[in-house]
C-alpha cells in the first residue's frame, strides 16, 4: 500500500511500501546494489559492506541494515562510494585464493562477477600466504576455507533455514574461519548433506562435490552398460545454464544430450516415483486402517531422513519404510533390469541425475546394494551434468528433443510433481483417495498443498474419514512442526518433509542463483509438465502395473518389501572422544605417577560407558551415571571398572544406554543402575579374562 512516504535515490523519488531496509527500496528503484551477505530469506548481517550508500546528512551507511525513513536523500554512485566498493573487493581478494581458472565456481562466482563489474583490475595487496587444508570428507560438498570471504551466508542458511548449525565462525581477528565444531571434517559432524550452504556461498568456498570424472570413466568403459535416471526437478532447471529461463521444461533436450554423451539408456526417475507412490500409499492406507505409526512421514528426501535419524529418533518408526525413488530405481535396475539384459549387476552402471547433493550420501548408504554392488553407482547434480554437456561441446540450445527409453521412461504426472514441495503428498493423495473410496478421482489437483510456503496444511475427506496432511519444506520449519507434534499440539495422518526450501526444485545441486523466484518458476514448470501428460495418477502407469505382475507381486507385499523398502535407525551426530570418569589417568595432575599404577599387572578392567548424547541426556543419563558410580563403589568394584561418558550408541529411541565391555544395554533408567552392576558388570569383572561379548549385541532393560 502506498502511504505517501518516499525517499530520493540518486535524484529519483521512490515510494516506500513497507520495505524493511534501504537496500530493498534501492533495488526497487532499478539500481542493483552489490551484496555478498544479504539474502532476503536470511537475517540481515551487514558484514560485507558492499551495499554502502551515502545518506545526505547521515554519512555512509550499509543499505541492508538501515531502515528507510520518509524523506531520506540517498546517493549510490558518488566517487567516495565507488572507491570504497573497489577497496572492499581488493581487500577480500587479498585474502582469497585467486586460482580462478581452476575453481569449481568459476563463471558462477559472485566475487569474480563483482570484481569484474566494479572494474577491479589490480589487487595492490599481496596474496595471503597461509593455506588451510581443504575438506573433501563429505560426499556432498567440498569446503575450501582459503576461498571463504566470511560473509556468513552458509552459517545463517544452516542455522536459520535448516535449523542445524553445522557451520559457525570460530577464532578471532585475522584468524577467523567458518568451520564445523572443533575444526572437524564435514563428514564427522551432523551435516545432512542438503548442500544449501553451497547454494548460497558466493564464492568457491563451498561447492558441490564433483563426480564428473567418475561418470566419464564409466561411460568410456566398454564393459559397462551405463544407464541414467533423471529426477523431476532437473528438467525445469538444467536449461538455466544455457540461457533458458527457470521453469522451462527441457526434458527432451537433456535426454538427447545424455544420449549424445554416451549413456546407453536414459530413464526417468518419475517412473520410480510412481512406484514409490504405489508402495507408500499401500503402506499409508494400511497404517491408517490399523491406526498405527501415524503420522506417516515421507521418506524420499535423504537429508530429511538423516535429520530425523539424528534428532528425532522417537519418530523414526513413523517414517515410511519406502526407499526413495532414486533407490527404488537403482534396486529395480540392478535386481531385475540387469537380469533381463543378461548382464551382471556390477556391469550395469546406474547414474542418477539429481537436483540434490544429499542423494550422493543416500546412494552410499550401506543398505542400498544388490549382492554387495551399489544400487546407484553415481549421483550427478544438475550442476555437474551441465558441466558434462558443456565439456562435450554439445550446443544444448540447438538440440533436437528426444524421448526417454522404454520401459522405465514412462511416468505419470504424479511422478513428475515429486520434485516440488507438496508434490509427494499430492501424488499419494491421488492414489490413496481412489484406494480408500473405491471411486475414480475426477479432479486430481489438490491445490491446497501447492505453493512455496514453508508449512501447508490440508484436510481431505476420503472414504468416510478425514485425512489430515501437513507439508513442510526447509528443515528449520520441519523442526518446528515436529516439536509441535511431539508436544501433542498438532496431529496429522501424513506429513511430507523436503529439506530444501521449495522442495527438490530448490535442491543444493541446482544451478545458481537458487533464489526463491527461480524455485517458484521451476515448481510451476513441474505442475505444467504434470498437466501435459495424459496419465496423472501413478496407479494408472501401465509399466508400474506390469512390473508388479512380473516381479514385485503386490504393493507392500513380501517381494516388494525386499526390493523397495528399507529400515532406519538412530544416528550419531558428532564423532569425538569420550569423557573419562574413573579408572583412567586424567590428562592432568599426577598423570605421570598414575601411569605406573595402570600397569601393575592386574587383570584387565571392565569397560563401562554411559551415553550422554541428547536423547539419553534428556532421559536422565546423568543420574544413571551417578547411580552407577555409587553402585560400583558399593559393590566394591571401583578399581575394576573403567567408567566413561560417551556420545551415542545409535540406540537413541531406547535410551538411556549403557555399554559394558562393548555390550549395549538400553532402557537403563537411573533405578536400574544396581541391576546393571549385578548382572553385567560383576560377571564381567569376575571373569574379565574371558572373551568380551560381541559389540553388536544389545540387551534391553525394558524387557524385564
Amino acid at each position, binding site marked *: 500500500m502506498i502511504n505517501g512516504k518516499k525517499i530520493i535515490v540518486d535524484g529519483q523519488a521512490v515510494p516506500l511500501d513497507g520495505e524493511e531496509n534501504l537496500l530493498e527500496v534501492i533495488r526497487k528503484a532499478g539500481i542493483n546494489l552489490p551484496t555478498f551477505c544479504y539474502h532476503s530469506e536470511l537475517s540481515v548481517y551487514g558484514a560485507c559492506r558492499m551495499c554502502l550508500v551515502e545518506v545526505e546528512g547521515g554519512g555512509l551507511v550499509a543499505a541492508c541494515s538501515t531502515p528507510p525513513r520518509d524523506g531520506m536523500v540517498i546517493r549510490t554512485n558518488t566517487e567516495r562510494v565507488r572507491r570504497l566498493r573497489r577497496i572492499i573487493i581488493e581487500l577480500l581478494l587479498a585474502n582469497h585464493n585467486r586460482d580462478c581458472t581452476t575453481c569449481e565456481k568459476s563463471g558462477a562466482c559472485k566475487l569474480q562477477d563483482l570484481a569484474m563489474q566494479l572494474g577491479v583490475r589490480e589487487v595492490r595487496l599481496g596474496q595471503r600466504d597461509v593455506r588451510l587444508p581443504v575438506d573433501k570428507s563429505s560426499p556432498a560438498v567440498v569446503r575450501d576455507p582459503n576461498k571463504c570471504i566470511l560473509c556468513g551466508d552458509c552459517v545463517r542458511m544452516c542455522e536459520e533455514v535448516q535449523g542445524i548449525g553445522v557451520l559457525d565462525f570460530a577464532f578471532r581477528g585475522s584468524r577467523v574461519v567458518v568451520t564445523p*565444531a572443533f575444526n572437524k571434517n564435514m563428514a564427522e559432524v551432523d551435516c545432512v548433506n542438503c548442500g544449501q550452504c553451497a547454494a548460497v556461498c558466493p564464492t568457491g568456498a563451498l561447492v558441490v562435490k564433483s563426480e564428473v570424472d567418475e561418470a566419464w570413466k564409466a561411460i568410456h568403459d566398454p564393459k559397462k552398460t551405463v544407464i541414467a535416471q533423471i529426477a523431476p526437478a532437473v528438467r525445469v532447471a538444467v536449461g538455466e545454464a544455457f540461457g533458458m529461463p527457470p521453469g522451462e521444461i527441457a526434458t527432451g533436450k537433456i535426454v538427447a544430450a545424455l544420449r549424445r554423451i554416451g549413456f546407453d539408456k536414459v530413464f526417468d526417475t518419475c517412473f520410480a516415483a510412481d512406484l514409490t507412490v504405489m508402495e507408500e500409499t499401500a503402506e499409508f492406507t494400511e497404517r491408517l486402517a490399523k491406526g498405527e505409526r501415524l503420522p506417516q512421514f515421507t521418506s524420499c528426501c535423504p537429508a530429511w531422513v538423516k535429520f530425523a535419524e539424528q534428532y528425532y529418533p522417537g519418530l523414526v518408526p513413523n517414517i515410511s519404510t519406502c526407499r526413495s525413488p532414486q533407490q527404488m530405481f537403482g534396486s529395480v535396475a540392478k535386481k531385475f533390469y540387469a537380469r533381463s539384459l543378461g548382464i551382471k549387476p556390477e556391469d550395469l552402471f546406474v547414474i542418477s541425475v539429481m537436483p540434490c547433493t544429499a542423494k550422493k550420501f543416500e546412494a552410499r548408504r550401506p543398505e542400498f546394494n544388490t549382492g554387495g554392488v551399489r544400487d546407484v553407482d553415481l549421483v550427478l547434480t544438475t550442476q555437474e551434468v551441465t558441466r558434462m554437456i558443456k565439456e562435450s561441446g554439445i550446443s544444448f540450445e540447438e538440440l533436437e528433443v528426444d524421448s526417454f527409453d522404454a520401459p522405465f521412461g514412462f511416468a505419470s504426472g504424479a511422478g513428475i510433481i515429486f520434485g516440488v514441495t507438496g508434490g509427494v503428498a499430492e501424488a499419494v493423495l491421488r492414489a490413496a483417495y481412489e484406494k480408500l473410496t473405491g471411486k475414480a478421482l475426477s479432479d486430481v489437483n489438490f491445490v491446497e498443498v501447492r505453493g512455496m510456503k514453508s508449512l501447508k496444511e490440508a484436510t481431505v475427506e476420503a472414504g468416510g474419514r478425514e485425512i489430515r496432511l501437513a507439508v513442510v519444506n526447509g528443515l528449520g520449519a520441519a523442526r518446528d512442526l515436529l516439536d509441535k507434534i511431539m508436544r501433542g499440539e498438532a496431529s496429522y495422518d501424513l506429513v511430507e518433509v523436503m529439506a530444501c526450501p521449495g522442495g527438490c526444485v530448490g535442491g543444493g545441486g541446482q544451478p545458481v542463483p537458487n533464489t526463491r523466484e527461480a524455485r517458484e518458476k521451476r515448481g510451476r514448470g513441474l505442475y505444467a509438465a504434470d498437466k501435459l501428460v495424459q496419465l496423472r495418477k501413478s496407479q494408472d502407469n501401465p509399466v508400474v502395473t506390469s512390473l508388479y505382475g512380473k516381479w514385485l507381486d503386490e504393493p507392500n507385499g513380501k517381494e516388494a518389501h525386499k526390493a523397495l523398502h528399507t529400515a532406519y535407525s538412530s544416528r550419531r551426530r558428532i564423532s569425538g572422544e569420550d*569423557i573419562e570418569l574413573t579408572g583412567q589417568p*586424567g590428562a592432568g595432575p599426577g598423570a605421570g605417577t598414575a601411569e605406573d599404577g595402570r600397569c601393575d599387572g592386574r587383570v584387565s578392567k571392565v569397560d563401562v560407558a554411559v551415553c550422554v548424547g541428547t536423547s539419553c541426556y534428556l532421559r536422565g543419563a546423568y543420574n544413571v551415571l551417578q547411580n552407577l558410580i555409587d553402585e560400583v563403589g558399593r559393590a566394591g568394584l571401583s578399581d575394576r571398572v573403567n567408567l566413561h561418558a560417551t556420545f551415542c550408541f545409535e540406540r537413541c529411541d531406547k535410551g538411556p544406554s549403557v555399554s559394558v565391555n562393548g555390550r549395549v544395554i538400553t532402557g537403563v533408567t537411573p533405578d536400574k543402575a544396581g541391576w546393571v552392576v549385578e548382572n553385567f558388570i560383576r560377571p564381567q569383572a569376575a571373569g574379565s579374562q574371558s572373551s568380551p561379548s560381541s559389540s553388536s549385541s544389545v540387551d534391553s532393560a525394558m524387557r524385564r
Partner: protein
Amino acid sequence: MPETGVHQDIHQEVQDDVHDVGREADGLANRRFEKVNEILEKYECDRAALISILQEVQDEYRYLPKEILTYVATALGLPPAKVYGVATFYAQFSLEPQGKYVIRACDGTACHVRGSQPVLRAICNKLKLKDGERTTRDLMFTVETVSCLGACGLAPVVMINDKIYGQMTPEKVTKVLDDIIKAERRRGEVQ
C-alpha cells in the same frame, strides 16, 4: 653462592604452591565431571550463561576439553559449532591442556630492557621446550609470554600460577623451577 633472603622466600612460596595445587588436583575425573553438572545446574542450562559456564568449567579442568564442550552444547541445546565459536573467540579460554604450572614470562618494555629474553630462554631450556611448544609433555608446565603484569618495578618479572617472582635472572628462574620439580617429585613418592 648468592643465596639471598629473597631466594629463601621463593623456596617457601614454592612449597606452599605445590601443596595448594596438589590438594586441588586430588579429585578424580568423575568429581570434575560432577562439577560440570553442578555448574550446568547452577546456571539452569541457560544459553545466555554460556561464557560463565565455560569459565567455571575451565577452572575445573584448567582447559576446555572438546568432549566437555560437546556435553555443554548438548545440555544447553546449542550446536557444538556455536560453543566452539565462543570458546575460540576469547583469549581467556584454552582448548589445549595447560600445565599444572602456568608460567607467564613478562616481555613488556620494562622487563624486556632488563633482560626478560634470557630469562625466557632459560625457562624453555630448563623445561626442554622447543620452538613453538608451550606445554611440557608431562603436563607440568605451560609457558606463555605476556605484555605486562603491572609489576614493572620488579622487572624482569615471571608469574607462576598466581605468584609473582621479581628481579629474575636465568639462574634464579632455573632455581625456582628446580624447586618446583623437586617438590613435585617428593609428592609423587608420597603417593
